[in-house]
């Protein structure tokens, strides 16, 4: 008599010592996935490699400059951190999209262990300054943390547009570049800038333009307080607020 439901034959011999007589995955024993590579795979792979390098540079910067995860903003610490960032960035062949990816990855991936706003801003600024492209866009509106020091030393010929808000020290030491912030900027914006233009579409904090040596700052909203400005111009809603009618530094008006 034939079975109504004959069991499937198995090629493996009965195994001793186990409850099951056969390996339930036996037929897949020799299975090897033959991966068919599509152009997108190569793009993704190369992007991943670049991101790894960028990430590594950031980690090195933190290792060298933010020991114990503390980073104090001082003139020499900023210069030193920027030099370290430059050292790693010079060796990377990246594009503007990679900087955007890095900004996104700062908060949205576990691969980047810490987001410390100061060093992160210095590193992003260095990435922007050494990028091949002249026009750059940073989408920071999704970030919960406001990044400090964005636009540090932005050179002449570069235009950096930031979507979202920035933290303290935005555009400090600007060297002729154009920095546009679509949201708000905090304190010390444009401090020590030598030339160039900063446009903040919403409001700006205290000490704006502290020790600025030249260039222009345009603010679409309110300027909360001006710093000790040496040279340069500050506009609030198209109205020149420095130089002009005497205003005391950091007086709220």
């Amino acid at each position, binding site marked *: 008599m*034939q079975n109504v439901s004959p069991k499937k034959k198995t090629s493996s011999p009965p195994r001793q010592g186990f409850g099951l007589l056969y390996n339930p995955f036996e037929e*897949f024993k020799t299975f090897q996935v033959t991966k068919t590579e599509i152009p997108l795979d190569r793009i993704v792979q190369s992007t991943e490699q670049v991101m790894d390098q960028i990430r590594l540079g950031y980690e090195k910067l933190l290792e060298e400059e933010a020991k114990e995860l503390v980073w104090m903003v001082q003139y020499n610490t900023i210069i030193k951190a920027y030099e370290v960032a430059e050292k790693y960035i010079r060796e990377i062949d990246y594009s503007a999209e990679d900087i955007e990816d890095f900004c996104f990855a700062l908060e949205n991936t576990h691969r980047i262990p810490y987001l410390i706003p100061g060093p992160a801003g210095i590193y992003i600024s260095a990435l922007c300054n050494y990028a091949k492209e002249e026009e750059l866009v940073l989408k920071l509106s999704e970030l919960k943390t406001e990044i400090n020091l964005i636009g540090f030393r932005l050179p002449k010929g570069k235009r950096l547009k930031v979507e979202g808000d920035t933290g303290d020290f935005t555009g400090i030491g600007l060297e002729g570049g154009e920095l546009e912030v679509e949201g708000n900027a905090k304190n010390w914006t444009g401090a020590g800038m030598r030339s160039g233009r900063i446009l903040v579409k919403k409001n700006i904090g205290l000490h704006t333009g502290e020790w600025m040596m030249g260039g222009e700052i345009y603010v679409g909203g309110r300027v909360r307080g001006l710093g000790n400005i040496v040279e340069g111009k500050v506009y609030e809603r198209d109205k020149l607020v420095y130089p002009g009618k005497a205003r005391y530094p950091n007086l709220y008006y």
Partner: protein
Amino acid sequence: MDIYQFISDHLYFNRPDIEIKGEPYNSAILMSLLTGLIKGKELIIGEPGLGKTTSAEFVCSLIYQFPLGVIWGSEVSGHPEQTEEKIIGRPDLGKLNRGEEDVVWTNFSQLPVKIVDEINRLPETKQSMILDGVDRGNWEYLNEMIINDEYCLFATANYQDGGTNTIIAPLVDRFDVIVESRYPGANLSFLIGKAQGKDKILRHRKFEKDLYRILKSKIAYEKKIPKLEEVCNAFGEYIDKTLGVKPLRREDRDQIRMEMDEIEMDLDASAFVRMFLAELSFCDRYGQKRIVENCEEGCHYTGYLCHQIKNCASNRLPTSIKQFAKGLAWFFGDSEIDIEHVKAVMPFTLSHRIQWKDEVLTQKERAKRDDPFQIFLAKEAVKTVSQRYREQSDHLKDALGLGSRIYQGESLEPLDGDHPIYIEIKKDIRHRRIR
């Protein structure tokens, strides 16, 4: 296959309702043919008068070489007064008068083709009478038993009306497939009305009488079989000569089954079935699906079939899928069962076995469709899982391949993935490691 074509052209007029590998087929004929070939069990549903019983009779007659007159005489009809004596056998009253106990077996229990007409008119209590026979081919009466070496079962059921009962769950699960005998459309229906005498072409009075004589004779059941086959072969030759279609002899059927047994599933088909079964049985919270337990609120696996159904897939389901997919692969002359074979038979093997949650039924009952609701839902489920399989077939096969290597003792970590099957693989591997 000639028999399919012959039935389709001359006996059972209907439209194709499924497409397999680009070819249109009528599911009622195709599934019935496979049921006959693989010794399966089929439930045919449909409106009254749409050829449920007739289609089964034609298929049985041509696959098993029995004249229609004998098949009619062996059919059991479902009605509330049906008894074990009419279905299985009765005491031999002559011998009983002489103080001896013997059983006169019914034609239904003796013939390899079994048709139960309107099975859902049998009350639930009486449905259990045929459970064993349906399952194993064992028919017991008094202290005697006959075992059918070769048998297939066709049961028909009308849609629920005043006179029908529910088919009990254990009996439903024993059916390998369910198909609908559909309305053929106004034009073909009109032709059916004109074409009288279809029944006559598969009849032969002499052979019918011979077969009845053998069935009624007092010789042992095992000795009756070769005698029945002898007459059947003669009837087969007659059909071949007169109609030009060659019914299958016992040797042919055995040969076909042997060839079917040699057809194995390819890796895609196997991985797809495993993925499907995982969705029909998995529960992250309670270990497996159970009809008495409800899904947990906010379960991670909400998007899978396990969240839409109440019950757990039975072990008979994969058996039915494999058997019918084998049959279909053989029918197409393919050397392996591929995913297309599996996808074609799957809705028919699982539609009667799944109990959908009420919210799913409510949500989909108004959907535009061409199939009975249960088969429609099963087809949709196959499409959904098939889509999921396409997206992760390589990863799943990798996971199964790795599972095999771990099972053989290699020290590797199983692959993760967002599907119940990956958890099932891990469970199997964990049990292997514990041992």
